[in-house]
């Protein structure tokens, strides 16, 4: 009897291997904190950028103490915030189709417009008066060539540029949605979709880029802080720079320095987190969003503690070590001075030795001085052509306004705010209807006023009193095309009555239209059909609620024309 071979451990293990393979849909639990990205990071970047702007504003205030420079801080902050958010938005995969250069150009243009308006409000005291506007219309450069606007624009754009640069670095440092989608897949699926593996971002370079930007701007801040301690206005009058009056750091500068360095440290820690995030994601390390929040908390606590402790440490150049180092630096400076003067003396001595024989040689023949050329008399400046100036300025403003509107529409369109033509059409028709109604009211009112005035003027002459029986006035300025078909028919009938009265067939008050029609037929028997048709149409138009179409009004018009020509002829 043959034995059946049974499945032993080998087979069981092979079957278990299949079972052990991870479920196809099971992804790596890797979560990021959206609040850090959507709120805290843009805020920190904006604070850092604004602190640089504040340092510039402090210097500007020292140079020109009059204007309220610090009032520009909100504008700088909002601009920086806008730049930070826009950079994050442009890094979004949905924004891949947006032309970066055009978008940024439009953004800068709008910032300049806002800066112009803001500088008007801050420095001049409000929106320009009509007289100033007239000047701006004629000479457009007068709008842009003011110091307040240029300073506002430069400082605002500096804050905006820094915020955009840092935000772009951080959005690139962050793990992208493509990386999350790929690296959270099970390893088997990652191998299957190897072609979709995202390209590695050089995060170390980006972190270095941030560090360089931060350190360079930090050095600039330190320099500005140092500069702010001097009376800068005296620089032009003082020959010895060390005689310039020294001031203390202003609270604004202190605050800006603190914010700059603390926000920078926070961002440095955040950059570190983002790099670690990317490494963890690629290595398949599971992570909860809570870790990022704890990281931010720890950073804030550490920075806060260090900043607090540092506040209690002795500060100042009065420290012994500071004095020793200052003495050392002074000594080095003294030695360098000695060295330079020594070499200066040596050089001078060498030059004297070299030029000793030159004095003994014959002096050079004096060259005759050439007669001065007659200077051309400058032509008197031509009187500016007013038409050309006006045309140029108009073209400038038209182009400028068109570009600004186009930029605004471009920004809105790229951000997903599309112009709904139907809605716009509805609003336009509403507006047009409202305007038409208003116009009609006003024109009616004006007409009645003019009539009343005319009546008052004509009242003394009794001859001008209209015939009491003829209640129909020739319509003036009446457009028949604008009347409804019903009104047109009534108009033709009443015109018939007027024409008949002029021909001697007057309608009595007691006569009905049908009776009067008979009377007219007796007078003009060859036009009986037309008279009947017109009378019937009038009765229908006057008393029937049924709608009357245009064609019927047209046929009545034709009959009225033939009647009119008949009534002109003698009976």
């Amino acid at each position, binding site marked *: 009897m043959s*034995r059946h071979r*049974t499945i*032993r*451990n*080998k087979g*069981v*293990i092979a079957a*278990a*291997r299949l079972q*052990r393979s*991870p479920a196809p849909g099971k992804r*790596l639990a890797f979560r990021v904190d959206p609040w850090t990205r959507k709120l805290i990071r843009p805020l920190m970047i904006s604070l850092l950028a604004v602190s640089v702007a504040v340092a510039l504003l402090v210097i500007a205030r020292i140079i020109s103490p009059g204007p309220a420079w610090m009032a520009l801080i909100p504008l700088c902050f909002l601009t920086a915030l806008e730049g930070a958010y826009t950079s994050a938005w442009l890094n979004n995969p949905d924004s891949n189709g947006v032309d970066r250069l055009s978008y940024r150009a439009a953004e800068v243009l709008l910032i300049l417009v806002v800066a112009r308006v803001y500088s008007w409000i801050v420095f001049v005291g409000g929106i320009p008066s009509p007289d100033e506007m007239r000047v701006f219309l004629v000479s457009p450069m007068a709008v842009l060539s003011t110091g307040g606007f240029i300073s506002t624009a430069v400082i605002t754009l500096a804050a905006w540029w820094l915020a955009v640069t840092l935000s772009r670095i951080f959005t690139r440092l962050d793990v992208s949605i493509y990386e999350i989608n790929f690296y959270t897949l*099970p390893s088997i699926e990652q191998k299957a979709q190897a072609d979709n593996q995202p390209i590695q971002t050089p995060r170390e370079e980006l*972190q270095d880029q941030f*560090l360089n930007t931060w*350190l360079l701007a*930090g*050095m600039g801040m*330190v*320099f500005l*802080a*140092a500069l702010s*301690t001097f009376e800068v206005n005296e620089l032009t009058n003082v020959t010895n720079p060390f005689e310039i009056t*020294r001031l203390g*750091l202003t609270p604004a500068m*202190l605050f800006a*320095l603190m914010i700059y360095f*603390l926000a920078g*440290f926070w961002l*440095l*820690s955040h950059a*570190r*987190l983002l*790099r*670690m995030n990317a490494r*963890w994601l690629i*290595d*398949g*390390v*599971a*992570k909860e969003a809570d*870790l990022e929040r*704890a*990281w931010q908390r*720890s*950073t804030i606590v*550490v*920075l806060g503690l*260090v*900043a607090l*402790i*540092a*506040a209690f*440490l002795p*500060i*100042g*150049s009065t420290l012994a070590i*500071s004095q020793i*180092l200052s003495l050392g*630096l002074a000594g080095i400076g003294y030695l360098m001075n000695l060295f330079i003067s020594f070499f200066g003396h040596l050089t001078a001595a060498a030059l004297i030795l070299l030029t000793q024989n030159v004095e003994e040689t014959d002096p050079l023949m004096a060259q005759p001085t050439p007669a001065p050329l007659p200077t051309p008399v400058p032509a008197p400046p031509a009187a500016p052509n007013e038409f050309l100036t006006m045309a140029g300025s108009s073209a400038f403003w038209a182009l400028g306004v068109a570009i600004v509107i186009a930029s605004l529409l471009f920004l809105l369109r790229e951000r997903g705010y599309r112009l709904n033509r139907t809605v716009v059409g509805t609003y336009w028709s509403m507006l047009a209807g409202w305007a038409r109604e208003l116009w009609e009211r006003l024109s009616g009112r004006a007409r009645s006023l003019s009539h009343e005035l005319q009546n008052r003027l004509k009242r003394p002459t009794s001859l001008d009193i209209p015939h009491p029986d003829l209640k129909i006035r020739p319509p003036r300025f009446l457009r028949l095309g604008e009347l409804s078909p019903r009104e047109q028919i009534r108009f033709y009938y009443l015109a018939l009555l007027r024409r008949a009265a002029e021909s001697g067939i007057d309608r009595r008050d007691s006569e009905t239209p049908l009776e009067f029609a008979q009377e007219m037929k007796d007078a003009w028997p060859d036009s009986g059909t037309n008279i009947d048709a017109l009378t019937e149409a009038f009765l229908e138009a006057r008393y029937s609620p049924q709608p009357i179409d245009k064609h019927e009004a047209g046929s009545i018009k034709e009959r009225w024309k033939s009647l009119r020509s008949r009534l002109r002829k003698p009976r």
Partner: protein
Amino acid sequence: MSSRFRWLFLLLLGVAFLLRVDFIFYILYVIAGVFLWSWWRGGRTLQRIVASRTYRKRAFLGEEVEVKLALTNTSRLSVPWVEFHESVPPELRLESAVHQVANLRGHQSISFTYRVKGLQRGYYRLGPLRLTSGDLFGLVKPQAGILRSDFLTVYPKIVQLTQLGLPSRLPFGTIAGRQRLFEDPARPMGAREFRSGDSLRQMNWKASARNQKMLVRTFEPAISLETAILLDMNAAAYERRNRYDSIEWGIVTAASLATHLINQRQAVGLNTNGIDPLRLQEESRVFDETTGRLLFESTQGSNDLSRFTPPAIEARAGRPHLMKVLELLARLYARESTPFAEWAPAACVNLSWGVTVIAITAQGDPHTCNTLHHLVRSGFNPILIAVEPDANFSQVRERARRLGFRAFNVVDRRDLAQWQRPLHTLHGGG
């Protein structure tokens, strides 16, 4: 990056002195403070983290084992991030690898659980757990720590046996026997009238007084099965074609017999000429990367294999002893070691008289039968269990009968079925 900080520090220091801006000292203090904090804290984070691994160290084949990893921050200060990666062989684990990053508040403990399942007997490695932590600013290099590996023994497969029916020569034991030659005083069965020659010790005085006649106690007959299992793991003895399966089956048979006998409160010992890889030096041990199983890859020559042969496990009863036997069986590897005919007599030198010797080997060839016959003559009770299929095993059985021992051909699970039937069926069948 720290070099840049040093430069910034020096540059700011220079600017501070040259321009005499006192506030720059504050910035310098902040920079120095952050650097010092990162340097001091980064180097001490892992020292204050205690990691532990909790699990059952032994598992039956196919049984799931839950491993719990716990990390405790013994410091009051929080740890912003700690990355930990537990190395678990992919064929052993049931879930994705434990590779996470977490934060620990002061005195906080966190734990993570994963499950493993051993589908092959063996000695498996769990871990090590690698820990990495660092500072918040990237100013110092991350520090790494490690929690040493732990090990999991997966027992060989055990087939539940009800009735072995193995013969015994020892007079006392716990398994009821059908021969009334030996009675077990621990198993009182009833009473009968006193006969001449009955011992007075067996008198049931209370029953005699009540019935007014002499009665003696009767006991159930019993046999003792103090057993020594000789497991032949000499690879050369097995046919090359089915070597792996036959050896594994021999181990399953040995484990099943040992478990059954110890469940019957019998003493069981184990002697084998196989290789125990745990006898390698710790640094020489090699674990398979895929399965995590301890391998035997000795760099020594085959002549030195005797060094890795485990010592005999003496016959004892009890669950702890069974675990010891099963652990050894879980680790064993077959190599071309000493042949059974040479090794078995030496292995039985220290056994007591009358011990049942269950020899599990490949086949019942004449050399093996002769060896077992010598054991019979030495006073043992050998039983041959051949695990390789043999069409002419009746001849072996007949030869064994003539040489004074019994032989069984147990090739697969169905051959164990005769010992798996319920007890009453066996009794009923006679």
